[in-house]
């Protein structure tokens, strides 16, 4: 039933019973509060982004984006941070995407409701709720720590950071991929199976291509999540000052989010570091919000196509 019909019926009834005004005013008041809540959220987003743009833009120049940091990160550019963030998000995506999509395929195409499925889902939900600093400690004890201390001995490096981030974004990828699979109509599967294709052939040739845009949306969202993550890379990948580009996956790297944090704790001269922090924040949120916007637009196009 449409909202307008609902409202007009309610209004009509309220007027007829003669008790209308007070009840109507109560409704007006609360509807105003609901709208206010939305406005507050919008303002929060607008103000945060606004501050970063207003104070960040003056700090951004070609040299800032493509230069090396100098004086312990207190001056110069942020190229190594941009590249570090790029490597980490790309690395975690390459690890998590195949595993996440395969998990989603199992859950949606193969698994039957039962104990095994319930446990897998429970694990995924809980993995999604693990605090990022706990992921950081886990990565440190498992990937970074040397062999004789019980770890894999990869050191503080792109490899350790990517692996840690991969575990962190895995639940996101599984969730969005499952949604993408759900949006593929069952008639597609039935048609393919009816033509004599096996389940595997159906998944590879019919279901996955149809779900691809949705999977793509999910991957963009998780890349942006990985790019903005700080606590998980703090002890696994990030260096506060390392003014060179990584040469191997076992190098430690600077990263945009960690740079923002480390400048704010190490700074003794806010006048000098604030513009750098605003500039770095602006670069980071442009990346993250940009990717999210692309994902949102992709998804809404997709929904329109599906409802047609």
């Amino acid at each position, binding site marked *: 039933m449409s909202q307008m019909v609902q409202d007009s*019926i309610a209004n009509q009834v309220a007027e007829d019973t003669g008790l209308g005004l007070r009840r109507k005013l109560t*409704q007006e008041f609360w509807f105003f509060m609901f709208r206010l809540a939305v406005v507050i959220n919008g303002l929060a987003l607008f103000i945060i982004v606004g501050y970063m743009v207003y104070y960040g833009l003056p700090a951004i120049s070609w040299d800032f984006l493509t230069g090396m940091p100098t004086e312990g990160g207190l001056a110069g550019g942020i190229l190594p941070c941009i590249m570090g963030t790029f490597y980490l998000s790309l690395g975690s995506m390459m690890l998590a995407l195949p595993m996440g999509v395969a998990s989603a395929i199992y859950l949606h195409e193969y698994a039957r409701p039962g104990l095994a499925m319930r446990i897998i889902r429970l694990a995924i939900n809980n993995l999604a709720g693990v605090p990022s*600093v706990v992921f950081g400690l886990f990565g440190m004890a498992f990937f970074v720590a040397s062999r004789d201390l019980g770890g894999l001995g990869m050191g503080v490096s792109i490899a350790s950071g990517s692996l840690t981030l991969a575990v962190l974004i*895995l639940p996101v990828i599984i969730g969005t991929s499952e949604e993408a699979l759900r949006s593929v109509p069952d008639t597609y599967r039935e048609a393919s199976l009816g033509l004599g294709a*096996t389940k595997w052939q159906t998944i590879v040739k019919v279901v996955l291509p149809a779900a691809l845009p949705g999977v793509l949306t999910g991957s963009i969202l998780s890349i942006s999540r990985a*790019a903005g993550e700080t606590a998980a890379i703090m002890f696994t990948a990030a260096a506060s000052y390392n003014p060179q580009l990584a040469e191997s996956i076992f190098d430690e790297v600077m990263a945009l989010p960690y740079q923002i944090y480390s400048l704010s704790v190490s700074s003794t001269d806010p006048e000098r570091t604030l513009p750098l922090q605003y500039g770095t924040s602006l670069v980071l949120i442009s990346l993250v919000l940009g990717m999210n916007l692309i994902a949102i637009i992709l998804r809404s196009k997709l929904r329109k196509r599906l409802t047609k």
Partner: protein
Amino acid sequence: MLDRKKKENLIRGAFFITASISIIALGLIIYFLVSEALPTFTGFDAMGELHGGVSFFDFIFGTQWKPISEHPQWGIMPLIMGSVWVTLLSSLIAIPLGVMTAVYLAEIAPNKVREIVKPMVELLASLPSVVIGFFGLAVVAPILLDLFDVRFGVNMLNASIMLAFMAVPTITSIAEDAIHSVPDDLKEGSLALGATHFETIRRVVLPASLSGLSTAVILGMSRSIGETMVVLMVAGGAARIPTSIFDPVRPMPASIAAEMGETSFGLERHYFALFAIAMVLFIITFLFNLLADHIAHKYKQVGAATL
């Protein structure tokens, strides 16, 4: 034909193993947390030097957290209280804001407005926590200092406000789904009885979606309690049990993140104690998630039967 079947089974098995990776990952996280936390309680031997353990009770209920003093003390109650208060205060802001936004989106918003507001909430959710922390530090802290006669701009209130805006999108999106799934005939019944739209929302829609709303609130709070960068940057960092909302606090994640860099790997009590804090934090968020999962399954909204 038999071969084809065999191949299908193999593929199915391969997918099952991949899907189990989430269980394995969660298992590994638990294993490493526990094994690195245990020496805190059992004592350990580092380079021939013996260190005694702290009892679990003293660790949780001790009121002094002094890891690097000459006579170190390992009570994490101030950190737990820091987390609890920051989470409660931020929930006071985030729950009404999140639920009201959800009601607006699900019940009132015209389609065109919804198409703008929903992405807006998602963008708010996607802001990196370190940027929100930096905003709290560089913008909100000076404002708090100006507005109130307080000593620290980075304090419990600042952290709670910043955390609230990180929890709102979580609460909104889950609550909106819950409100959406209230069947139309319930609403129509209420309207037909002469209730206004708001009365219907309050007396029918919200009660009918209560289980989904609880899930939303629990997951929102779980997100706040585990959020690290914001409390690391704007909570103030004092490991004392707070007495006012303007007190600086040191919630558990902040303690872990701030101090881990100062310890040496696997050799110091401090290192193990930080893992023990992480274990406590993990247990808390784990319980929150189990609770949310339980509510979602047990009180599944199935049509009018929920009322």
